[in-house]
């Protein structure tokens, strides 16, 4: 049980662009290097318009399913896989990460990438996940996915592109609204 009440979040606002992005922020490994894939997508609002001022973070296991514990995400040395990336979207709401397919963190688990979403007009960050599409047996057994209706479940599973990359869009609201997660168990959390 928590003893202290958490500090409230606030919107990232419009002016993070000179503060949060950094060199190679979206390159968890060098584009084109062996095993690298592109994770791309677009962030949409409730009217179906791309959002030009959102920023995403991903956090994931390595290809073997191991949780990285290495520093160096902000000053990438080109060799160390830290598991963390950050990508502000462009004018057309598009984001791109270069990363690896995460392995399952436990035997038989469905591999996924953890995602945090921030945007101007979004009062507090949102958590979600993007799952790899291949291991259908593991996806069917996944505790989160199996608790969701099929049309909701679909929003968390990426499409595999012909080039081996992943495409996955985020819809903050409306048709195909992405499933966002609440990890708190305290009363009075965001609604």
């Amino acid at each position, binding site marked *: 049980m928590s003893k202290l009440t958490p500090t409230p979040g606030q919107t990232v606002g419009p002016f993070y662009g000179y503060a949060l992005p950094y060199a190679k922020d979206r390159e968890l490994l060098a584009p084109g290097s062996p095993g690298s894939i592109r994770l791309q997508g677009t962030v949409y609002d409730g009217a179906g318009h791309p959002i030009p001022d959102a920023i995403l973070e991903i956090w994931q296991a390595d290809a073997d399913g191991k949780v990285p514990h290495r520093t160096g995400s902000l000053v990438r040395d080109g060799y160390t896989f830290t598991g963390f990336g950050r990508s502000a979207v462009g004018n057309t709401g598009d984001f791109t990460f270069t990363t690896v397919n995460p392995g399952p963190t436990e035997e038989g688990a469905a591999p*996924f990438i953890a995602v945090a979403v921030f945007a101007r007009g979004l009062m507090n960050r949102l958590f979600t996940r993007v799952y790899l599409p291949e291991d259908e047996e593991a996806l069917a057994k996944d505790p989160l996915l199996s608790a969701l209706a099929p049309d909701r479940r679909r929003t968390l599973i990426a499409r595999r592109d012909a080039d081996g990359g992943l495409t996955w869009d985020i819809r903050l609201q409306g048709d195909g609204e992405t*499933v966002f997660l609440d990890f708190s168990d305290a009363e009075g959390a965001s609604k």
Partner: protein
Amino acid sequence: MPEEINLEIYNADPLTEDVSDEATEAAPKTYAPLDAAAESQADLSAEMKAIGEAYAQALKNGAPAETQPRLDYAPYRSSVLRHPTKDLHHADPETIELYSPAFGHMDVHALEADLTIQHNGEPLGERIVVSGRVLDGDGRPVAGQLVEIWQANSAGRYIHKRDQHPAPLDPNFTGVGRCITGADGSYSFTTIKPGAYPWKNHLNAWRPAHIHFSLFGQEFTQRIITQMYFPGDQLFPLDPIYQSIVDQDARDRLVATYNHEQTKPEWALAYNWDIVLTGSKRTWTENEALGAEGDDHE
């Protein structure tokens, strides 16, 4: 609606690139004409008041106190199409979410915590030291983790092309800082007190002075971005972003305390602000519990 973003400024490294001249050119020379279609502060204040009263009534009827902002808070107009309409799905964090990205002293230079020494000269404005501790919901210090801040200058202007407020840029102030928390979860930034600034949510909308804070915990589920405010700001009741937190106790958690004891004579005023992340879901390693710092390259 997408406003133009200058990528050179957008992606600039504030410590090595001076982006201020370019942004100066973008500033309009006169005040923007008032938008006749814009809603008034009175309209917005009435909306905020109604939401506040409904919340007070709900509390009286036994509803739990809210601790976070409302995602659906229409007085902040940009939130209308940007909040999920479905309830957040309660989930138990899984392996990767029970750990956090690691940051350390290879990521952040010690001097990045002083926003007043990033250029050749002294920035204009009221020099302040903002310090405090990052704790988890159990009161344990969050040691060796990344804190990032950004803010407007003393005139209320951000170094960002999309900020069209005709207040002066300060060539000696970028307004970006970082640090790694100490073993006791402590952080400290030396900076300039930011000014209030106008935004176009409604006619005559002004943001209270604030510093944006970005924080990591020991678990990804503790990730948070928020804003720190200064005590006694007369703009609090008028600001839809601050008011999106409908509970007064929760709002107060974003307001720093002036600390005269820590104020540095003939140098800088001091403010304290502690940040509490959500509770931990995982048993910490001995290093984390002891507050060992983040670098682990062995």
